[in-house]
């Protein structure tokens, strides 16, 4: 069955979402990510949407689900590479993608993940005291 490949990069997982994803593929991706986060004890997920020419509410919900689910598994999420035309349309559509961290590209996304993970470490340490 067709699946979206998930790459391991250090303590993070990298997913590149290609065009015209259909429902089954989206659900499979979420399942795969869940198991991979646990298996590799990944601290972060980087989702690259730079080839997506469109993001609709379905994909938006999927991204939100992934972020929530990852967070429950103690992993941070960053979405990178959103195209200007997609961003403009999302604003018009009214989809805010609230709670989802974004960055311009993979490199910046990685830096954002490192910072986000460090932040949560800090919080965890403090609360343990």
């Amino acid at each position: 069955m067709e699946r979206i490949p998930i790459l391991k990069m250090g303590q993070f997982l990298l997913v590149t979402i290609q065009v015209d994803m259909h429902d089954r593929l989206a659900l499979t991706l979420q399942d795969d990510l869940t198991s991979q986060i646990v298996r590799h004890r990944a601290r972060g997920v980087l989702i690259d949407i730079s080839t997506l020419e469109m993001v609709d509410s379905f994909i938006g919900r999927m991204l939100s689900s992934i972020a929530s689910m990852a967070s429950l598994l103690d992993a941070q999420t960053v979405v990178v590479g959103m195209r200007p035309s997609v961003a403009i349309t999302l604003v018009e559509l009214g989809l805010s993608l609230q709670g989802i961290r974004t960055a311009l590209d993979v490199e910046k996304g990685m830096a954002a993940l490192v910072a986000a993970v460090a932040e949560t470490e800090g919080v965890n340490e403090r609360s343990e005291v």
Partner: protein
Amino acid sequence: MQAKGKLSETLGKREAEITSKWLELQAAGGKKISAAEHAETTRTSREFMSAFKAATQKGSTDDITGPEWERVREIISDLSASRAKGGYSASETASFVFSLKQPVFSVLRDEYGKDPEVLGDAIWEATVLLDKLGLLTTEAYQKTREEVISRQQQELLELSTPVVRLWENVLALPLIGTLDSARTQVVMQNLLDAIVDTRSDFAIIDITGVPVVDTLVAQHLLKTVAAARLMGADCLISGIRPQIAQTIIHLGVDLTNVTTKATLADAFAVALRRSGQTVVKMDKRVAAEAK
């Protein structure tokens, strides 16, 4: 009543003669054209005559909006559009149809000269018809000219609002002059594209040079800030003068989530800070050496 149909009859009988006289008149028109343009005009004229003749035979000469006149309207429309793009004047375009009057009248006079009343009616029918067709050329011509101008304005727009790279990671967009909705949208898109191209995490939209900000412009500004955020960049607005600040409040536009600064310099300082950079004054010795 008797004269109806005389025009189409005449066109049927003496099409070739009318066409060649018409082509002569057009060539003598005075505009210098290339051999290719000349051949094109000849071809179009012949097509027109044939469609014109058919339309007068099949349809009414009173109403050129009917389906029998569609081919004629099409030819006129295409010709006018192509002349508008080709730099012909409105008169040069309209003369395509109007110069047809003389050959038609002279042939009508030849056919019906003996019967003044019939001749008069036939000439009247022909002139009213050709006037209508001539007016069609001006309408089509104008429409094309407007499209050309609009496209040129768009291109000018894109050239006249450059995005400036203030520093590594920081872009500035100094907006100058009045902003209309169309211009603002183009400009904003350019900024977002520049953010991607330069991989800048910060963009400053400076509106010092904008005298009036209305609801639409304010909304576009906000949408741009929101879009930049979605992409992962931070967007600040600078240059909000007191009057504009008041307008924005009265418009009910919500700027609570947007960082706004009075000057571009202030906004730049904020962007630098947020990106973990700062400007440091060199000590005197180093500064002297740098000169």
